[in-house]
């Protein structure tokens, strides 16, 4: 038993040396997660920072000027041009210079003062319909503000019921509070799964795997020697991203590190298990890389990272029961932001444990079958 442990330790040491000895490969293990975390933390957002717009004001009244100053004062809407003719609208939208074109008709001010409702026409560039919808939503809420101001200034009754919204766990509804904790699992999985798959494939390609086989190592030991270092590297990557989340993006961590790391440990078992699984199918590094990629892509896209799992078709939801990243994302966010404990996270811990055990023992079986 102790001899076996010693052999595994020796393999672990060898594996660390192989990966970390080369400065370029050290660099490529730690730089991408850091860079991606920073870039995605800022970029992956559906909130619009600026809405370039053009206006066709045919009214030129005090009321229309008032509405436009509400827009320009929002900090988001940036006026690109004052148009003179209706046919200019198409030009500004087509060339993407304006996301919205706002058209105020001649009788706008007159209708408002007469107490009638006054329409404003908005044309949106729907090339990205999601963005267009968001911009129209922003415009709508600014018009709501304008309406409220107008009513109180002109003695009209306000809306009968006020809806006050408060948000738990993320007071300003900041997208990055959702995105960055999600990146802990996503980036770690991409890194670990590919690293594991490639490390076996590289040995096979360079012929050193055959040399391992003539040593007294048992298949299970060889596998442990591959799995442990990659899990340690994965945990280091997760920790790096967690540190960036707290100290760079200042997202307060309210949960328990014990719960989080227990979950991440199980998740990494699954990620490494899948990596070993890929490497036992792949014959070359190219195959290992591409198969790993084909596996990671659907897992990442269908994990709830970009779109909610509950909005996916039923069929895909039931297929994604096997997706470890889905549980890891849920778990990380809930521990990080909501201080969820073991009891609340049972529905994540159970599948993660099952997936981790199945993939690792499955990989062990495939490994020993190929070796003997």
């Amino acid at each position, binding site marked *: 038993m102790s001899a076996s442990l010693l052999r595994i330790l020796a393999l672990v040491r060898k594996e660390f040396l192989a990966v970390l000895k080369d400065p370029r490969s050290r660099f490529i293990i730690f730089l991408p997660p850091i860079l991606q975390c920073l870039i995605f933390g800022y970029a992956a957002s559906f909130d619009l920072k600026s809405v370039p717009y053009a206006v066709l004001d045919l009214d030129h009244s005090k009321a229309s000027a008032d509405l436009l100053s509400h827009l320009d004062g929002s900090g988001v809407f940036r006026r690109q041009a004052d148009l003179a003719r209706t046919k200019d609208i198409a030009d500004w939208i087509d060339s993407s210079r304006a996301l919205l074109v706002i058209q105020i008709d001649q009788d706008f001010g007159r209708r408002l003062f007469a107490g009638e409702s006054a329409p404003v026409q908005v044309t949106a*560039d729907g090339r990205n319909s999601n963005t267009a919808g968001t911009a129209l939503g922003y415009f709508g809420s600014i018009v709501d503000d304008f309406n409220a101001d107008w009513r109180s200034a002109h003695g009209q009754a306000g809306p009968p019921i006020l809806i006050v919204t408060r948000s738990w766990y993320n007071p300003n509804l900041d997208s990055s509070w959702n995105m960055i904790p999600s990146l802990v699992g996503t980036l770690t999985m991409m890194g670990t799964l590919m690293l594991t798959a490639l490390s076996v494939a590289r040995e096979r390609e360079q012929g050193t795997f055959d040399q391992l086989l003539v040593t007294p190592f048992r298949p299970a030991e060889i596998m442990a020697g591959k799995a442990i270092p990659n899990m340690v590297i994965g945990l280091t990557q997760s920790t790096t991203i967690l540190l960036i989340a707290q100290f760079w993006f200042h997202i307060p961590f309210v949960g328990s590190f014990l719960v989080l790391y227990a979950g991440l440990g199980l998740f990494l078992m699954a990620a490494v298990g899948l990596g070993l699984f890929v490497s036992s199918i792949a014959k070359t590094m190219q195959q290992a890389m591409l198969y790993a990629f084909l596996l990671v892509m659907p897992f990442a896209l269908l994990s709830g990272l970009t779109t909610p799992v509950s909005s996916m078709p039923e069929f895909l939801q039931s297929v994604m029961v096997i997706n470890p990243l889905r549980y890891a994302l849920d778990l990380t966010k809930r521990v990080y932001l909501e201080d969820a404990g073991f009891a609340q996270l049972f529905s994540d811990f159970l599948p993660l444990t099952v997936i981790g055990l199945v993939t690792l023992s499955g990989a062990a079986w495939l490994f020993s079958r190929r070796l003997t």
Partner: protein
Amino acid sequence: MNDLSAKLRRVRALTLKETMQIVRDPSSVAIGIVFPLMMILLFGYGLSLDVTRVSVAMVDEDDSSDSAALVAAFQHSPYFAVTSVHSMAEAKELVLNRKADGAVLIQSDFSRRWHRGEAEIQILVNGTDPNQARIMQAYAQGPVAQWGAAQAGSGSSLAAGPVVVVDRMWFNESNNSHFFLIPGLIVLVMTIIGAFLTAMVVAREWERGTLESLFVTPMRAGEFLISKILPYFGLGMIGFVLCLLSGKFLFHVPLRGSLLLLCLASMIYLLVALGIGLLVSTLVKSQFLASQLAMLLTFLPAMMLSGFLYDLRSMPAFIRGITYALPARYAVALMQTLYLAGDVGSVIWPNLCILAAMATVLLVLTRLATRKQLS
């Protein structure tokens, strides 16, 4: 003349060898055919930003006939699944256990304040998923307005307001997200086939030393590059055609610009991707590093920083600055415009010229690098 035909013969032989390698390696076929199909199906059927039904915990502290009517309005709304609870603590417990997405609180003085004309209800959303939280906030307007209208009789003061917005969405009247995802997918597929696959293939030849042995033959650097580019260019175009066909027949995305320009734009972008893949693998000469770099430099930017999934206008200025250096940005603008808006010269020509310039620079650099590495 003899020299030229020898050149052609060498290029043909090597292209043939490369094509054979692609056809025989199941992973190349997987990335050339399975990957585009998988992405089309995932983006076409799997991803959706629509939140169908929000479950809320309803806390009615007032327990009056007014508040009961409001609760009923939420219960009748198709957008809400309501669970009644007795206290906010209970509601929060439900949210924490994912039995509810948020809560609605009607305070004990609700009815009294309503008759004074200053009623208020609280919507508590779970900010862990900000997108869903915002959607819930928007949905809540519906039942509240309905209730208000019912309470006020047919009160006209509840009409939309002094200014009403009439909006039109051009290019995508039905607000169908396939319309912008499918054009972007073409860019993603080209990136993977062009950059990711070639980066690995050429690095492998360096790693195994087969390139050195190739260059003791009369083969020149330029000929070598052409023979590498041609087969992957072909594979990339297969991916393009798959996207094109599925866009038309599966998702009915209209192609309003000219097909010719669309093909031209795709080919030029494919050359850019091939250029990056070849350059990276020539410079680092290791499969592991080349694959990681190709992923970092091409696939992730194409996915995240191109305007494909996340709009460039949602990014802070310095990130937007970075995107100007990334070819995917220009390609996505081209595809979306050609598909949905048509042949808009002021968008197409500048973007096309930038991509063409990038392709030229990358391929020239690759050629120089290959020659330098050999001497």
